[in-house]
C-alpha cells in the first residue's frame, strides 16, 4: 500500500466532488436544512389539534370540563356545535379530528353521584393520530374525574396507576426522532458521496485508466472511501452539534462510544455505496441502486415505526440494515447514557457489513473490466 498514491487519488476524488458549485451545494446545504425541518415536523406529540364540542348540558360541571379542554395545549377548540346533525360532516370534511359530545344529563348525573357519560367521535383515517388524540382526551377527562372525585367526596377506586417514563420523562417524541434524523442524514450523505463515484468514472471511461495505473484494487478502494469518511464524519458532527445545541436533546453517554459507532456505520454505509457503484455501468443504474437500498433502509430501521411490530421474516431482513444498528447506538448514547461496553452487539454487525460490502466492491472493480 503506497500512501502517496492513495493521497493523490483522494485529492482527485475531492476535486471531482467539489469542483462543481451545484454538487458542492447539494452535499452541504440539504442535510442541515433537512435536520431542522424534519426534526420539527416529525413528532407524534399532538399540538393544537382541531376539535369540536357539542355540549347539551347547561350545568357548571360541563363548563368545567370544557375549560380543561380549552386549557390543554393538545387541542384547539374550533367550534361549539349547536346541534348533533353536523357532527358527521365536520369529521368527514376534516374540519375537526374529533368531536366531544357531552350529554344533557352530565351535570345532573355528577350531582347525584352517578357516572356521567361523555361520547368521543374520532376520525380514524389516520388511526395512529386518532389513537393519540383519544388518549390525550382520556388523560384530560381522567384528570377532571380524579379532581371531581376528590373534591366531591366520592369513594376512591381500589387501585390507581402511577406512571413514570425513564430516559424521556415527558415522552417527547422529538428526543426519539432527532437522533434518528442524525442517522438518516448520515446515511444519505455517505451514499451520495460514494454511490456514484465508480459509476461516474465507468460512464466517462476513466475507470479503465484508473485500473491500468500502478494503484492496486485496495488502494483504489481506499481512495474512493476516504472522501466519504471525511465528508460523512464532518457532516455527522455538524448535525450532532445542531441536535444538542439547537434541539436540546440530552446527551447522556460517551462521545467515544458515539464516534466509534459513527466510524463503523460509515464503514458499512460506504461499503454499501461502493458496492452499488461498482456493480453499475452507468450513473443512472448507480442512482437507482442507491434508491433501492436507501428507501427500504429508512423504513426498516426503526426510525419511525418499531422493528418489534414487524412480522418475523421482515425483522430478520432488518439485521442486514446498517442503519438499524446505528439508530440503537445514537438513541442509546443520547438518551440512555450507554457506553462502549453496552453497545458491543451493535458494533460487531456494522464491522461485518462493512467488511463484506468492501470486499464485494473490490472484487467488482476488476470483474467489470473483463
Amino acid at each position: 500500500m503506497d500512501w502517496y498514491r492513495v493521497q493523490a487519488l483522494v485529492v482527485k476524488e475531492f476535486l471531482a466532488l467539489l469542483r462543481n458549485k451545484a454538487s458542492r451545494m447539494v452535499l452541504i446545504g440539504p442535510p442541515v436544512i433537512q435536520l431542522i425541518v424534519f426534526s420539527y415536523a416529525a413528532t407524534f406529540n399532538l399540538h393544537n389539534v382541531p376539535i369540536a364540542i357539542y355540549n347539551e348540558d347547561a350545568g357548571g360541571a360541563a363548563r368545567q370540563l370544557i375549560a380543561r379542554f380549552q386549557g390543554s395545549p393538545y387541542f384547539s377548540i374550533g367550534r361549539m356545535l349547536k346541534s348533533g346533525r353536523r357532527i358527521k360532516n365536520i369529521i368527514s370534511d376534516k374540519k375537526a379530528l374529533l368531536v366531544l359530545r357531552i350529554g344533557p344529563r352530565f351535570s345532573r348525573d355528577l350531582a347525584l353521584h352517578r357516572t356521567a357519560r361523555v361520547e368521543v367521535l374520532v376520525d380514524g383515517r389516520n388511526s395512529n393520530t386518532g389513537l393519540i388524540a383519544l388518549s390525550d382526551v382520556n388523560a384530560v377527562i381522567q384528570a377532571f374525574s380524579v379532581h371531581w372525585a376528590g373534591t366531591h367526596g366520592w369513594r376512591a377506586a381500589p387501585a390507581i396507576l402511577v406512571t413514570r417514563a425513564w430516559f424521556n420523562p415527558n415522552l417527547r417524541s422529538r428526543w426519539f426522532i432527532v437522533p434518528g434524523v442524525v442517522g438518516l442524514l448520515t446515511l444519505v450523505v455517505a451514499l451520495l458521496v460514494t454511490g456514484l463515484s465508480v459509476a461516474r468514472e465507468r460512464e466517462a471511461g476513466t475507470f479503465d485508466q484508473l485500473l491500468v495505473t500502478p494503484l492496486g484494487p485496495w488502494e483504489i478502494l481506499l481512495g474512493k472511501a476516504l472522501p466519504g469518511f471525511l465528508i460523512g464524519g464532518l457532516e455527522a458532527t455538524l448535525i450532532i452539534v445542531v441536535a444538542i445545541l439547537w434541539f436540546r436533546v440530552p446527551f447522556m453517554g460517551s462521545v467515544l462510544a458515539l464516534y466509534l459507532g459513527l466510524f463503523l456505520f460509515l464503514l458499512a454505509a460506504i461499503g454499501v455505496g461502493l458496492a452499488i457503484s461498482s456493480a453499475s455501468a452507468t450513473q443512472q443504474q448507480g442512482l437507482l441502486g442507491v434508491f433501492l437500498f436507501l428507501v427500504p433502509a429508512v423504513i426498516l430501521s426503526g426510525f419511525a415505526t418499531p422493528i418489534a411490530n414487524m412480522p418475523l421474516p421482515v425483522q430478520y431482513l432488518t439485521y442486514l440494515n446498517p442503519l438499524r444498528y446505528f439508530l440503537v447506538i445514537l438513541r442509546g448514547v443520547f438518551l440512555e447514557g450507554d457506553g462502549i461496553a453496552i453497545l458491543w452487539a451493535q458494533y460487531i454487525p456494522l464491522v461485518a457489513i462493512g467488511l463484506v460490502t468492501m470486499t464485494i466492491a473490490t472484487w467488482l472493480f476488476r470483474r467489470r473490466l473483463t
Partner: protein
Amino acid sequence: MNRQRLRGLIRKEALQILRDPSSIAIAFVMPFVLLLLFGYGVSLDARHVPIALVAAHPTAQTSGLFSGFRQSPYFRPRTYADIVAARRALMRGRVDAIIWLRPDFTRKALGGGAAPVGVIANGVNANNARIIEGYIQGVWASWLAEQARERGQPLVVPVDVRSRVWFNPALRSHDYLVPGLIAVIMTLIGALLTALVVAREWERGTMEALMASPATIAEILVGKLVPYFFLGMGGMALSVVMAIVVFAVPLVGSLWVLFLCAALFLLTALGMGLLISTIARNQFVAGMIALVTTYLPAFILSGFIFDIHSMPWPIRILTHIIAARYFVSTLQTLFLAGDVWPVIAGNMAALAVIAVFFLVAVARISHKRLD
C-alpha cells in the same frame, strides 16, 4: 403544436423507454417491491410487548391483576423477584415496561383504596411508550371492573368516556398506511422517471440537438410527458390493485375519482422531475436533488405518519408546497371514507396548481437557457 412532430417525439421517447429497461423497472418493479416490503414492514400496532411484573408481596389480589396482563395479546410478561432485577432488565432493553406492586398494595386495595400500581416505561420511543401505557390502562380498568363485580359494589367513577372511531373502527394501521405509502412511492417514482432521463440528455448534448430541431419547447415537453405518464399510471394501477387485493384495504370511494386524482398527482411528480433535471443538467446533481426533495419530504411532511396540525406553523406552511400532502389526504379519504368532495375538490385544485406551476417553470427555464 404540430400533430405530426408531436407524434414523432412521443414515438422517440417510447422507443427510448422500451430499449432501456431501467425505466420500466422503475415504474413496475419498484412499486411492487416497495409496497410489499413497506406494507408488511410498517406497522404501529404493538403486539407481544415484553413487560416485567414485580409483586413485592404476592397475594391473591396481585396475581388477579397480573393474570389480566398474562391473558392480554398485547403483552408478553415475565415475572421478576424484585424491582432491582426488573430495573436492570429495563436498562438492558429486555423489557419495555415494569408493573410494580409495592408490599402494601393488598392492604391498601382492600382497605381505603387508591393503592398505587407503579408503571415504569422506557420512554426512549415516546410514541410506543404511550401506546403501551394505553394498553396497561386497559388491563387496569378491566381489573377494577372485575373487582367491583366480585365485591358486589358497582364501580362508580365520575366520568366514563365512550369513544367511537369512524372510517377505521378496527384501528388497523395498515388501512391508512398503505394508501399513504402509495403516495410516497409514486412521488419517488414519478420524479425519478423524468429527473434522470432529461438530465442525461443535457449531459450528452442530445437535448440541445432536440432544441435545434423545428420542434417547439411545448412539443418536446409534451413528447416527454406522455410516454412517462402512461408508464407511471401503470405503476399506480399496480399499487392500487395491490392495496386492495394483497393488503385488503377497503376502497369505499369510487374508482374514477381515484383515477382522476392519481393522474393529477402524477403530473406534479413528473413535472417536478422535469424541473429538477432542467435546472441541474447533470445526472449527479439531478439525482441528489431528486433524493433530497422527493422521498424524505413525502415521507415526513405529507401527513403520511406525522400529523400536520401538530407541526410548528413555518413547517405547516412549507407542507403546502409538497404535492404528496394532498395526495395522501385524498387517498386516505377515498379508501376509507368515500368521495368526500369538500376534502377531495380542495386537494385536486392544489394538485392542479402545483402541476401547472412545474410545467410552466420547466418551459420557461428551458427556453431561457437555449438563448
